[in-house]
């Protein structure tokens, strides 16, 4: 302690600014690799997308500045307005169901028992399947022409004719949510499981010796102590659902009759079908701002 004090005092006397400056340079050097990566991979694309949104940006050839035309025309894009409403609805349903199912699964496999590893793995396994692959898998299984699910249901006498899994708006949404639950419930279970296991067993023992029943233990101990983990899961689920793309793109193709078009699908359409890169960038920026706002709010409320 004394040593440091004397040393710094001496340093302060001899060459204060030079030493300070060299430490500052050193700090910058340490941070430089990360700064470069952040700059190139995160900041630059963001700046680029904002800049694109202020221009008419053709596939090849020079861009022309046209701000704020790309933003103004968002209002007369009925597909996007519908997509916003649909995505919000999808997010609400998915998040509620996903939280419920994931929590249920986590509670099921919470305690160490013989063979529990098998169930944990089995529940998590769909999480290892890529979304596009999962979409195709469900498309294949539920397809009315060649899917095995319809014949199975019919031979068991549950249904009398093929169910239009993606043929009507409501069924398409239902089928997609089933796909998402299958794909993500295990993953979210894993998140909740780590939260559950972080709760000290002493708390449970104390509660039990005080005579609390299972329900009381769940509502008074498990849920409150799980709150930070639940918050994390909620944020992931809401953000992921608002950015939903693959499931609809691969599985329902936005149909039938544009009933399952998500916001990102509109961005994709504007960029790659209509070649309106500037317009697509503007939509992305709007989406980004909304997401940042929403996440900030959620972080504050749920912390």
């Amino acid at each position, binding site marked *: 302690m004394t040593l440091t004090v004397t040393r710094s005092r001496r340093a302060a006397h001899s060459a204060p600014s030079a030493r300070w400056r060299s430490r500052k340079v050193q700090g910058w050097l340490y941070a430089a690799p990360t700064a470069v990566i952040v700059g*190139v*991979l995160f900041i*630059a*694309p963001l*700046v*680029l997308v904002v*800049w*694109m949104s202020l221009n008419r940006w*053709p*596939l*090849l*050839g*020079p*861009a022309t500045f046209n701000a704020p035309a790309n933003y103004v025309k968002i209002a007369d894009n009925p*597909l996007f307005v519908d997509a916003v409403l649909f995505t919000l609805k999808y997010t609400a349903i998915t998040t509620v169901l996903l939280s419920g199912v994931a929590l249920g699964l986590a509670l099921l496999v919470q305690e160490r028992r013989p063979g529990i590893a098998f169930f944990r793995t089995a529940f998590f396994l769909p999480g290892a399947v890529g979304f596009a692959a999962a979409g195709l898998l469900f498309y294949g299984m539920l397809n*009315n*022409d060649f899917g095995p699910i319809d014949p199975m249901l019919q031979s068991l006498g549950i249904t009398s004719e*093929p169910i*239009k899994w*993606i*043929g009507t708006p409501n069924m398409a949404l239902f089928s997609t949510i089933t796909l998402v639950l299958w794909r993500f419930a295990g993953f979210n279970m894993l998140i909740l499981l780590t939260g559950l296991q972080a709760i000290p067993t002493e708390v449970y023992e104390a509660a039990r010796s005080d005579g609390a029943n299972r329900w009381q233990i769940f509502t008074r101990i498990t849920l409150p102590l799980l709150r930070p983990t639940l918050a994390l899961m909620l944020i992931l689920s809401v953000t992921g659902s608002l950015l939903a793309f693959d499931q609809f793109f691969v599985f329902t*193709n*936005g*149909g*039938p*009759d*544009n009933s399952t*078009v998500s916001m990102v*699908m*509109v961005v*994709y*359409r504007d*960029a*790659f*079908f*209509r*070649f309106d*890169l500037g317009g697509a960038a503007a939509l992305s920026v709007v989406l980004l701002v909304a997401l940042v706002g929403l996440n900030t709010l959620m972080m504050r409320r749920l912390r």
Partner: protein
Amino acid sequence: MRRRLAGISLLSVLALTAAACGGGDGNDGGTQAADGPVTITMWTRAATQTQSERLVAEYNKTHKNQVKLTVIPTDNYQPRIAAAAGAKQLPDVFAADVIFVPNYTSQGLFMDITDRIAALPYKDKLAPSHMKLGTLDNRQYTLPHTLDLSVWFWNKDLYEKAGLDPEQGPESLKEFAEQATTVQEKLGKDGKIHGTFFGGNCGGCYVFTFWPSVWAAGAQVMNAEGTVSLNDQPPMTAVFDIWRKLYENKVTGPTAKEEQGPTWTGFFPKGEIGVMPMPSTTLGLMPEDMRIGVTPIAGPDGGESTFVGGDSLGISATSQNADAAWEFISWTVSDQAQVEVMAKNKDVLARTDLAGNKYSAEDPRVVLINSLVAKGQTPFALRFGQTYNDPQGPWLRLAREAVFGDASKVPQLNTEITKSLQQ
């Protein structure tokens, strides 16, 4: 300046990615490689993959320069081209659905090859509709690659079993509907066989199979500039009505309403469909022992027409191997390639002067299809893809309301199509 900055940051991202991937040999030829054999890259869509593969295989076998072909799923083709163009990473040569070509040329994706085409001895014999769509402001950008015409196919075995004359295909859309209904009534009891089929949730399928009936009746679906939609007028509405009745009477397969496109041609070769409109390129893919009749698509009361679809081939504007690319694409329309690769496999030729060749003479159906090239149409519109092919575009909504839903919405939806065409 700002654009350059944006470019630099994008470049550094690309450089970083390339470095992360370990790079390649880093030299994709370029003009300096003209001495040695050059390998050029080519993209094509899955719909016309067979023809492209045959041409590339034959070319690679007989030439020093080589072509590396990449096949991309048809639905993803347009987005892939857009993404590649944005990143200036287009292949040297790419095929495009002919109806998208005007948009691509107007976006500057293809290299101007007017002078090179002018030097071809058979320049005036190249498929006219493909050449028309590949021309912008009197400059030419593409060569015809494959021709895919829509025609009615009928299954002679099913016709015989249903008590119809197997040698007599339908001569009007009304007759088509009657014959399909007969097949359905006589053979459709067990739910395996159906009178007809169509891609009811696929915009491209509708234009390919329904529009020829309108043209056959002497009408149009758009103005010549491709900026005003006429899809709310007769005979289009009459055509919709006939198909609507076929669906309502369950003459079409039950999944027609949901069919998104990829599998719509899959039922006929299995012997499950009596009569339906199909792409002519599927003729070469039919089972050998299947007895199939082919006839032009007709209007409600007769006439004949076809949608001259298929692909055009051009050199991308960013290609560094223009000479090698031209050597390949000009070879694909040569006598050798056209007759020994395309005609030999029952494909429609990209050149009208070779239509009567030694192979086509063997199959009257091929002669018929070849003869339709002159009668058919290829619609022109700069905004074709986003209007008619895109599942979120306005055309699919109109067609589905007209066939399955509320037909009274057609006029209002037609204005949406016009709006999209003018964007």
